[in-house]
């Protein structure tokens, strides 16, 4: 087995995508307070800036003092950019589906809603049609999240009532390799990337991530880092897990069709079986357990789930369109 030093070490700052990022990154490097959010800011400029501010909570940047994670000016700007992101996500949400029975009816209603959801599928395209170059491009974009897989929702653990806290840890224990570093899901993905000749360093491909990938990642950090949004974080988790098992099999089969790295096939095969368990836990014991104690969070759970599905649809549309496959 290839030995990869998966070290959580500082990486270089990403390239700014506009005047806000330029000023913020320069201020971070030079140890000056970061500016406030300007009245008008380009979405992509805002997204890479927010991603960078979030990333300081996961790991640092080589050029930036670790203290800046909690710098009041950085926290203020983060809050301003987060409010914009949350407002945008909420403006896209049509509201939760109507069903009778309250929290007890949630699991069945949730699985039914996932089943009824029709979206473009990257996994289906990878399974039957994608070229090797297209798959490598997709994996580079997926790496922004998969190299810190499960980390955003780990922030939520101490904010939950007892039953869903225990349930989330049961799921997370599996995600984090049940005590075996070589089984940690982020590590399996890093192994797969290295076997494909890709750079398994966190954030290595951030400069080519389009707006929607930045939004996907920022959304998970937004939900994970705010106790107020714990319901949305768990709804997002449930939707993610409930749309992973079957697509992961398609991904594994597509990689096999193209003769691409066995290690990356293994990553996806692991997710066929793991997520068949995780979707049940996430929907029934984690979200269901949360709503049994905090039924007022039901809307937030659905909002988080919708945001997960909607952002994935947006990424799929973007890539399939770019590849002329839409």
């Amino acid at each position, binding site marked *: 087995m290839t030995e990869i030093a998966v070290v959580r070490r500082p990486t270089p700052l990403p390239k700014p995508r506009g005047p806000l990022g330029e000023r913020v990154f320069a201020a971070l490097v030079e140890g000056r307070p970061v500016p406030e959010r300007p009245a008008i800011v380009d979405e992509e400029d805002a997204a890479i800036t927010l991603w960078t501010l979030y990333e300081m909570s996961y790991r640092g940047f080589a050029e930036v003092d670790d203290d800046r994670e909690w710098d009041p000016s950085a926290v203020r700007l983060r809050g301003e950019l987060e409010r914009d992101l949350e407002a945008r996500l909420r403006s896209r949400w049509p509201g939760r589906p109507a069903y009778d029975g309250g929290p007890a009816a949630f699991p069945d209603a949730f699985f039914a809603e996932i089943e009824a959801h029709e979206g473009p599928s990257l996994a289906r395209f990878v399974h039957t049609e994608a070229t090797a170059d297209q798959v490598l491009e997709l994996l580079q974009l997926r790496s922004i999240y998969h190299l810190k897989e499960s980390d955003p929702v780990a922030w939520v653990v101490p904010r939950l009532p007892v039953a869903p806290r225990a349930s989330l840890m*049961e799921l997370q224990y599996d995600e984090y390799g*049940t005590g075996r570093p070589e089984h940690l899901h982020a590590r399996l993905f890093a192994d797969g990337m290295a076997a494909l000749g890709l750079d398994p360093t966190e954030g290595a491909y951030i400069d080519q991530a389009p707006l929607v990938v930045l939004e996907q990642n920022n959304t998970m950090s937004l939900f994970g880092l705010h106790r107020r949004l714990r319901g949305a974080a768990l709804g997002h988790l449930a939707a993610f897990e409930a749309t992973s098992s*079957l697509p992961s099999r398609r991904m594994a089969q597509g990689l096999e069709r193209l003769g691409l790295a066995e290690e990356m096939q293994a990553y996806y095969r692991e997710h066929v*079986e793991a997520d*068949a*368990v995780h979707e*049940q*836990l996430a929907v*029934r014991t984690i979200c269901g357990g949360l709503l049994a104690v905090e039924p007022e969070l039901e809307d937030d759970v659905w909002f988080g789930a919708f945001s997960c599905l909607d952002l994935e649809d947006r990424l799929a549309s973007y890539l399939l369109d770019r590849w002329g496959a839409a």
Partner: protein
Amino acid sequence: MSARDAGSARGAGGATAGSSESPDVVVCPGGPLLLRGDHVVQDEDGSAHRTTRPVSAVCRCGKSATKPWCDGTHKVIPEKLRP
């Protein structure tokens, strides 16, 4: 007493309805059987499979490609064929 001992003691004494203890085996409507903890599952051919996860999902629809484990296939078969 470990959680597992507590489980056996409860089994011997008989679980009471509404017990606050979490179950070791959970039947998911229309989906798999969840097994919490370390178990050996014997499949239809008599082969033994040891669980490898904190919780495992055992196929109940009969259509999984990774039997005895669930692979989510129950979601794509007609509803009347689901367990």
